[in-house]
C-alpha cells in the first residue's frame, strides 16, 4: 500500500509502486482532470502539481511521491466554485475541444505561484512544454494574463 497526499487528502493505494501517477489518479481515484495524451512526457496533458511544481504525471511513478503534496485540477476548484485560473480560462472561453486545457491550467497555476505577474514572453516560454492541437493558444495566453491580473 502506498500513501499519497492528493489535494490535501490522504489516499491509500493498492498499486504497483512503479505505476505512473496519471493512472492512479484516473483509474483508482476517478480524478479525471489529468489526461492521457502520450504517456511519454511530451505533451503535458497530464500535468499536475507536486509540491507546487508542474510535473508530467504520466512519467512520475507513485513510488517517488510519498510525503509530497500532489495537487490536481480538482484541487484548484469545483464546478460550483472554480479556482482563479479556472475562472480566467472560462471567462476567456479558452478551449475548443478542451482536452489539453486541464494541463494548461495546472502549468499556469505553477507559473503564477512563482511569478505572480509574468510577461507575455515568460508565459509563452513557461507553457511551451504543453501542446494544444486545436490552436487555442492565443486564448490560453490571454487566460493566463487574466488570471495574473486577478491577484
Amino acid at each position, binding site marked *: 500500500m502506498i500513501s499519497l497526499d492528493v489535494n490535501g487528502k490522504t489516499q491509500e493505494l493498492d498499486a504497483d*509502486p*512503479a*505505476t*505512473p501517477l496519471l493512472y492512479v489518479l484516473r483509474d483508482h481515484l476517478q480524478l479525471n482532470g489529468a489526461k492521457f495524451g502520450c504517456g*511519454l*512526457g*511530451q505533451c503535458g496533458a497530464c500535468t499536475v502539481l*507536486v509540491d507546487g*511544481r*508542474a*510535473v*508530467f504525471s504520466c*512519467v*512520475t*511513478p*507513485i*513510488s*517517488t511521491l510519498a510525503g*509530497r503534496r500532489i495537487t490536481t485540477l480538482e484541487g484548484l476548484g469545483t464546478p460550483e466554485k472554480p479556482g482563479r485560473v479556472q475562472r480566467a480560462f472560462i471567462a476567456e472561453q479558452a478551449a475548443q475541444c478542451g482536452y489539453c486545457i486541464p494541463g494548461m491550467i495546472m502549468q499556469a497555476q505553477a507559473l503564477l505561484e512563482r511569478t505572480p505577474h509574468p510577461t507575455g514572453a515568460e508565459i509563452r516560454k513557461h507553457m511551451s512544454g504543453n501542446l494544444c492541437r486545436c490552436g487555442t493558444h492565443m486564448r490560453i495566453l490571454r487566460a493566463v494574463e487574466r488570471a495574473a491580473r486577478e491577484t
Partner: protein
Amino acid sequence: MRPFAVILSTVAVCAACAADPVAPDAVPARSSFDPALIAKGAQLAAIGNCQACHTAEGGRSFAGGRPIETPFGTFYGTNITPDPDTGIGRWSEQAFVRALREGVDRDGRHLYPAFPYEYYTRLTDEDIHALYAYIATREPVRAQNRPHELRAPFNLRGLLGTWKALYFERGAFRPDAVRDAQWNRGAYLVNGLGHCGACHTPRGVLGAEKKDQAFSGGVAEGWHGPALNTRSPAPVPWTAEQLFKYLRTGLDDTHAIAAGPMEPVVRNLARAPEEDVRAMAAYLEALAGPPSAERRKKADVALAQAKAASRANGRGAEVYAGTCAACHDRGREAGSGGALPLALGTAMTIPTSSNLLRITLEGIAPPEGEPGRSMPGFADALTDGQVKDLAGYIRSEFGRAAAWTDVDEELKKIREERR
C-alpha cells in the same frame, strides 16, 4: 603562482601591448562576392558553429546576445551581422582576418579567448577569406552588444596581452605528411574550425589548454566534454562510421544522443559537407586509438547488459524502475526511436555526474519545429534525495564503476542555475 606574478608586473604595460586599430571600412556589397565563395563560407561556418555562440535563444541569427557561462564570469556573444553601428558592418577583411588569426579586434583590443581564436588561428587564408564572404553578407540586425559580466581581475582586458604571450600559439595548421589526406583534413577541422578542444581538453586555472593532455576531457557550460583520445570513457569504442552518424544526426543508437552544448554542434554539422564530417570522424577514431583487449571485453559486457532487463535493488533502483525503465529498458516499442539503453551511454562512465544529472533534470528536446528524440526533464518530479539515489544506482548498475563524488555539488549547481 608564477603566471600571476608575471601578470601583476605587467598590468600597467598591457594597455600599450594592444595592436594598432584597423581603419573602419564598410563591408563590401553582396554583389561583389562570388556566390560560390559565400556558399563555401557557409559550410565552414557550419563546422565552426558560429551561429551557436552568436545567436540568442529566439533571436536573429548572428545578432549576438547569448550568455556563455565560464569560470571567469558570463560572456555575451557579440553581434557579428554586418550592421554598421552595432555589428561588424564596418570591419574590413583585414580586421576580420586579424581577429581570427591574432585574437585582436578592429580597434586593436585583445579579444577574450571565449572567442576561440586559439583554434581559428589554424585556419588557412583561403578559408578565412570564404568565412568573411559569408559573414559580411548576412542580414544586418541592429542590436547593441551586451557587456560581459566578468569577475575581477578577468574584467581587465589588458591582461590578455600577457595571457596570450604565455599561452597563445599563432599560426595556420601544418599537415602531417605521414598521414593521408582524410586524416589531415579531419585534423585541420577538429583542431581548427571545429575547436573541439575548447570543450574536450582540460584547462588550467587561467583557462589555458593543458597542451600535454589534448582531448583528455574538458568542461563547457557545466557539461563535461568526454575524453576523445585513448582515455575515452565510452563503454563501447566508437567506429568512424558511428562517429560520423552521431556528428551528422546527433544520434547513434549504441552510443549517445547529443545533449547540452553538443546539440547546436551536431545541428550545424548536419549542414556541413559530408566528406568534411567524415574526415573529422576518421580523425577522431584515430585519436582514440585501437581499443585494447580489456576495453573490448568491457564493451561486450556493456552490450550484453543493454539487452537485459535491469535489476531492481534499493531506492535508486525503485526510482529507475518507475521513472526511466519504461523507455530506457528494452521493451519500449520504437516510437520515433526508443531511448538509449544506459549500459551503452558515456554519461554513465565519465568521471563526473554532471552530464547524467543535466540530462535527467532537463531532458532532451529536438530543435524547435524539427523532428528528433524527445525526453522529458525530471527536475520538478524528483526530489534531490531521489536524484542522488537514482544517480548512484545508474552509476553502479550501468556505469559499472565506483561512485561519483561530485553528485551533491553538481546537483546544487544545476538547481541554482534553474532558479
